[in-house]
Structures are given as C-alpha cells and as structure tokens.
C-alpha cells in the first residue's frame, strides 16, 4: 500500500498535466514508442501492486509458505471461537472423525491420554449414583414409617392409584413430566422427552394439538402480533410454552412451577436455535438433526420435591421397628402356639378310642377335622377344652361308626344285655365272656343275643351258673341226728325247709337251661360203734331226709340215697362236739347239661 501511495506521488502536478495534454511529447516510432510508454506507465502505476501480486502468487503456490502463514492465523481464529459459533460447529465433525479414526487404529494412546480424566469422572458418577440411591432409600424408609405414609397407602388403596404415584403427588413441589420441541409453523413434533414414570398420549398428536390450541387462542382473543400463548393450566397440570423464531418448547408441568422454570425454558429455546437454527429454518419433515437437542430437553425434566417433607427422627424409627418386630414376634408366637394346640388336640383325638380322624385342614386360623365317631365315644369337642384352642375355632364333622376295640364291644354288650349286678363282661378275640353270679335266665338271653353284636362271635360264661350256686348252698347244709338214731329232730325242720326251697330253685334254674340234676342224699355217722351198725344207720338217716325232700316231687331232680357211715366226717376231731357234727345227712348235686343228654 505504501509503495502504491509513493507511486501516486510521482504523478505530475496539475499544471504539468495540462501541459502534457496541450502539447504531446515527440514520438519517433509512434507504435513502438506508444507501447513502450504504456509499459512504462503501467510499471509506474501498478508496479508495486504487481510485485505484491507476484509475492502473493508465490505464497499461494508454495505449500510450505501457505502452511506457515495459516499456522499463524489458526490459533488466533480458535481463540476467537467464542464470538463465532460456526467455527466450533464446523470443527466438531472433524475432531470426531479424528478421534474415531485414532481409536480405530489403536485405542491405547487415547485411553492413556484420557486416563487422568476418566478416573475422577467415573468416581464422580458412581458417587452421584450412590448418593441418589441413598436418598431414595432414606425417603422410602421415612415414607413407609410415618402416619402420613399410612394415610397415603389408604388413599392409594381407595383411589386405585399406585402408592408411588400418591407419594409423588403429595411430596411433589413440581415436576416437568414432558417436554416437546415443536416446529413452530407446522406444529410437527421435532423431539419429545418424558420423565421416568410419566405417561402421555401420542406425542405427535399432542404436539399438533398444542399448536392448534395456541393458534386458536391467538385467533380467538385477538392478541397482538408477537404476543402468544405462553402457559395454560388444567387442574394440577400446566403447560409452559416458550416460543422461539422457528420452534416452540412446551413443557407439561405437574404442580406449581417456579418462575425460574420459564427462564430455563427460555434459555433452552435460545440454545436450541443457536445449535440448530438452519435445520429449523429449512425443516421439511426430517427429524434426525434434532436428536442433538435431546440433552437440552432432558435437562428440563426436573423434579422438585417439597422440603417440608419432615424427616422421621431416629428414635421414632427405632420404636416403630421395635413395634413391628414385636408385632411380628407375637404374630409368629401366636401362630406357633395355635399350631401346637391344634397338634395337641389332634393327638388327643388319635389317642381317644372310638374316634378315627380321616382328614384335617386349617384356613385363616380356623380348623376343620373330618372323622368317624362311635356313638359311645367321648364327644370330640370336650377334648378341645384341655388343648387351649377355643371351641368355636374348630369344626368337627363326624360320621357314626362302630369301633372294634374291646371296650367298645363290651360297652355295646352292656347296653344290649344289661347284666345283673355283680356280673361283668369282657371281650377278647371275638369272644364275649361274662363273669360273676349270673342268673340262668340272663345267661340264656345273653347267649342268644350276644352274637348279634358286631365283633362278637361267641358268648362265654366263665362264672358259676345259678344251678351251681344253688348246688353249693345245698351242699353246705347239714341235717343233724341224735346219737344212734335216724329220726328227724324237730329242730332240724328249719334246715330241711331251706333245703326244700333251694331244691325248688334248682329245679327252676335247671328247667330254663333244659338241664337235669341228680341229688344224692348221704347219711353219715360218728366214729363210735361198729361198722356193721353204722352202715345201715347212715342209710336210714339218708332215707329219712329223702323221704321228706321228695314231697312234692320236683321235675328234673332225681333224689338218690347213699349211706357212707363214718367215712366222710364233717370234721376229723373226736370230741363230743365233733361227734355231734358228724351225725348228719348231706346233699350232693350232679348237674346233667342238656348237651350231655344227647
């Protein structure tokens, strides 16, 4: 430039120029001289520029020089990137490509270079994750242990919402649930992000609808140009609308949005326009470029909880958990005790004769037992009483049956046969046996009826029959005689009357059974006197007794006599008193059972 300016200074002054114009200088060869003059003039006029141009041409063609020059300029250009977003934007893909190809060639150098950065970054991310996990854990603990939480559970149950939702609604200051990035003109949805757990209708349609509503409001209420709908509210939900030149950001907010939320939307719209201005302006339906706006939209999905969510002090936490533990313990213990009691009852049932448990069940603290019960067995419910269970918690369903245990067979026999006092019944291996002084009439009935009882094959009488007993009484009698004589003394009348009545009883007893008896009257003497005399004396004494007892004659009883002399003394002594007792007649009964008659 300086050279050019100097060149200009060489131009003749005004007066000279007029002189040139008025009288042109001599020219020996008009053409050649004109050309030479023109070249000279040119070199005078543009000579310096020419040199510049040549230098520039050398610069441009010499790669080394150009590189050197550009390398001077670049750092300054990068330093100015703040003022020019274009530079950063255009460099970004190059840098990305460079990194990608470097990693592809050998990831190690990059990994090494990044190592000092990655370590802390990863640690920070993990710390952050742990912190938010603890936060949410604490919150969960707090919320599950307060009265308020119980109330919320109740609300959730009542309204059919999830507990998490109720908690959120109650602790939420506000939450940005969805953010729409909408193409301003067409209402087409460019990007959409949703907070975790939030739900929404088809975002494309919502986006168009939002635009339609905004248009509707604008058209319907004659707002000025440049003014537009920027928020509307439905119940707890509000929509914040932030207009940019080409795109609109709409956020669906639950709860009371603070004023600074609008500011963050404002900033987001601006930064998205900065980032994607051209793409927005030339939008023709292709959404791919707008995924670049996603991080900015995600950043808008804030959830702000109320800080009045007061913390539960630890002592309360401890008390509540102690109560819960105690409750659990008590519940477990009661359950265990109930099971013990139930087991006890079942055990008793199993032990109790005449009860057979077929199946048991327990549901919701109630017990049911199905089984068989002999009508003679104990009432099963009475066994509950000792077990500790309440009677109304146990239901028994019992079918009647006849138990085969000896005691039940015996008891059924008692009920059927009504044995007379003194007679007892026993049952073993199909045989029902009676012992004790049974009347023959009863024995006959028993013999006939017993086999009708379940389990009884045979009836057996082990005790003395009535006839045997009467016989024994008869055989205990002694009719005493005076010394050397066979006549009946008046004082023996009582004994004889007894004998007669016993014989009558014997005859009755025998008749019932169809049996017969032979009663032998034996005449005895004392040891005094000769055998020749004593033999006939005994016979005479027997005859005397027989004579009396055979009137009236009794059916089934045959009286016979036998003189035995002193051979069978009542007592072996030899005193006078012994001798008195030995002068006597005795009775001996032989019963002939009907079977033996056959």
């Amino acid at each position, binding site marked *: 430039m300086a050279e050019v300016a100097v060149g200009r200074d060489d131009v003749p002054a005004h007066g000279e120029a007029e002189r040139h114009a008025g009288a042109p200088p001599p020219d020996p060869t008009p053409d050649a001289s004109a050309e030479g003059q023109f070249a000279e003039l040119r070199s005078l006029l543009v000579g310096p520029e020419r040199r510049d141009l040549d230098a520039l041409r050398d610069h441009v063609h010499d790669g080394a020089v150009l590189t050197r020059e550009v390398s001077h300029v670049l750092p300054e250009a990068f330093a100015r990137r703040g003022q020019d977003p274009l530079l950063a934007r255009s460099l970004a893909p190059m840098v990305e490509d460079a990194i990608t190809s470097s990693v592809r060639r050998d990831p190690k150098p990059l990994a090494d270079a990044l190592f000092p950065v990655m370590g802390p970054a990863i640690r920070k991310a993990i710390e952050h994750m742990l912190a938010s996990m603890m936060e949410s854990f604490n919150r969960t603990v707090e919320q599950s242990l307060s009265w308020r939480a119980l109330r919320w559970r109740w609300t959730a149950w009542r309204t059919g919402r999830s507990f998490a939702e109720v908690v959120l609604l109650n602790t939420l200051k506000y939450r940005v649930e969805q953010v729409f990035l909408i193409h301003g003109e067409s209402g*087409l949805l460019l990007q959409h992000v949703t907070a975790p757990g939030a739900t929404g209708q088809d975002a494309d349609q919502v986006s168009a*609808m939002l635009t339609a509503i905004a*248009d509707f409001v*604008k058209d319907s209420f004659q707002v000025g140009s440049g003014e537009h709908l920027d928020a509307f509210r439905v119940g707890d939900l509000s929509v914040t609308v932030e207009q940019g030149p080409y795109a609109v950001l709409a956020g669906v907010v639950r709860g009371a949005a603070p004023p600074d939320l609008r500011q963050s939307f404002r900033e987001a719209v601006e930064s998205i326009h900065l980032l994607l201005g051209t793409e927005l302006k030339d939008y023709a339906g292709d*959404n791919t470029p707008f995924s670049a706006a996603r991080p900015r939209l995600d950043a808008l999905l804030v959830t702000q909880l109320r800080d009045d969510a007061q913390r539960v002090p630890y002592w309360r936490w401890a008390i509540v958990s102690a109560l819960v533990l105690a409750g659990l313990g008590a519940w477990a213990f009661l359950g265990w005790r109930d099971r013990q009691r139930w087991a006890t009852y079942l055990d008793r049932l199993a032990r109790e004769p005449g009860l057979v448990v077929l199946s048991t069940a327990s549901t919701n603290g109630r017990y049911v037992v199905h089984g068989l019960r002999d009508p003679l067995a104990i009432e099963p419910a009475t066994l509950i009483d000792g077990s500790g269970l309440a009677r109304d918690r146990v239901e028994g369903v019992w079918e009647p049956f006849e138990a085969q245990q000896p005691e039940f067979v015996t008891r059924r026999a008692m009920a059927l046969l009504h044995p007379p006092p003194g007679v007892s019944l026993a049952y073993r291996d199909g045989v029902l046996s009676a012992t004790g002084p049974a009347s023959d009439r009863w024995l006959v009935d028993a013999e006939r009826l017993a086999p009708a009882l379940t389990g009884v094959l045979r009836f057996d009488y082990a005790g003395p029959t009535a006839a045997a007993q009467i016989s024994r009484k008869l055989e205990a009698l002694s009719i005493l005689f005076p010394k050397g004589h066979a006549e009946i003394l008046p004082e023996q009348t009582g004994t004889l009357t007894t004998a007669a009545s016993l014989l009558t009883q014997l005859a009755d007893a025998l008749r019932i059974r169809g049996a017969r008896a032979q009663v032998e009257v034996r005449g005895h003497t004392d040891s005094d006197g000769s055998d020749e005399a004593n033999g006939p004396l005994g016979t005479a004494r027997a005859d005397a007794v027989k004579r009396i007892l055979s009137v009236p004659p009794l059916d089934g009883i045959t009286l016979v006599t036998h003189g035995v002399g002193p051979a069978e003394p009542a007592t072996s002594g030899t005193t006078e008193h012994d001798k008195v007792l030995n002068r006597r007649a005795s009775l001996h009964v032989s019963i002939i059972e009907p079977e033996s008659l056959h």
Partner: protein
Amino acid sequence: MQKKICLLGGFGVGKTSLVSRYVHSIFSDKYMTSVGVKIEKKSVHVKGTDVDLVIWDIYGQDDFQKVRMSYLRGASGYFLVVDGTRAATLDTALALHDSAQQVVPGAAFTLLVNKADLVSQWEVREDVLERLRTKGWRVLKTSAKTGDEVDQAFLGLARAMLET
C-alpha cells in the same frame, strides 16, 4: 420423515369420515367443535421413505371465511374435499384452495369428490372435473362409506409431497 396435511372443505362433505376411514383415532370428536381441529396420525411408506402423516381435520363451515386458515401453516399438503351430491361444495373448495395457496404456496393438494357411492345423485358434473384435471389437478372420487379410493388418496398426496 413427517408431514403435516390438512383437510379443507365445506360442512358435511365427509372430511372427518374420510380420516376415520383411514386412521384409528385417540382423541374424541369433542376437540373438533371446541378448538376447530382434530388431529390424527398415520404412517405410510412411499418412494422408499417412511412418512408420518399428521392429519389436521379442520372443522368446516359452509361459510369458508370462517375456516381458520392459520391452521394450514406448515402444511406440506392438503385435501380439498367436495360432496359430489352438492355442487355448491365444489365452489367452497375452490375458494378454500385460493386461500390455502396464500398460506402455503406450492403445497401439494388433491381434490377429493366424496360420496362416490351416491354417484347417481351427483350434482358435480364430470366435465367440470375433467377441466380441473387438464389444469394438472389430481382429482379422485372417494367414498368414506365404502372406502373407495381413500387409501389411494392419502398415498397419492404423500407421494406428491415428497416430489415437491
């Protein structure tokens, strides 16, 4: 790729019926009367491209002046819907077309003469339609009742939008 399209036409020509024939709706019709538009969505595949059509069904009145043309902004295409049994609805459609071209100049469009199932009662004359065809218009005879030509109408418009 997504494209906004609109349905324009007089009252009762069958715009809503045509859309219902084509998509299954999530919004109830009540939006239509309050906000004046109902929005549906349908994905089609034309010329090797997936196109999500966002369909604005604009509530039509006999007096076309009352149709909010601002709803057309950003549309890549629109249908002009005519009721074949009422010649007057063709005039309405032509007037709407003029307004539409001011809002979205150069947007693709198709003229749908609807109620083709009632062709015996048509007032719209074939020669009129033929004249429009010679002007380069796409003209289809549709029936929302039988579904005739409905799919073709949407696919044709989608294709035309990709070409412009």
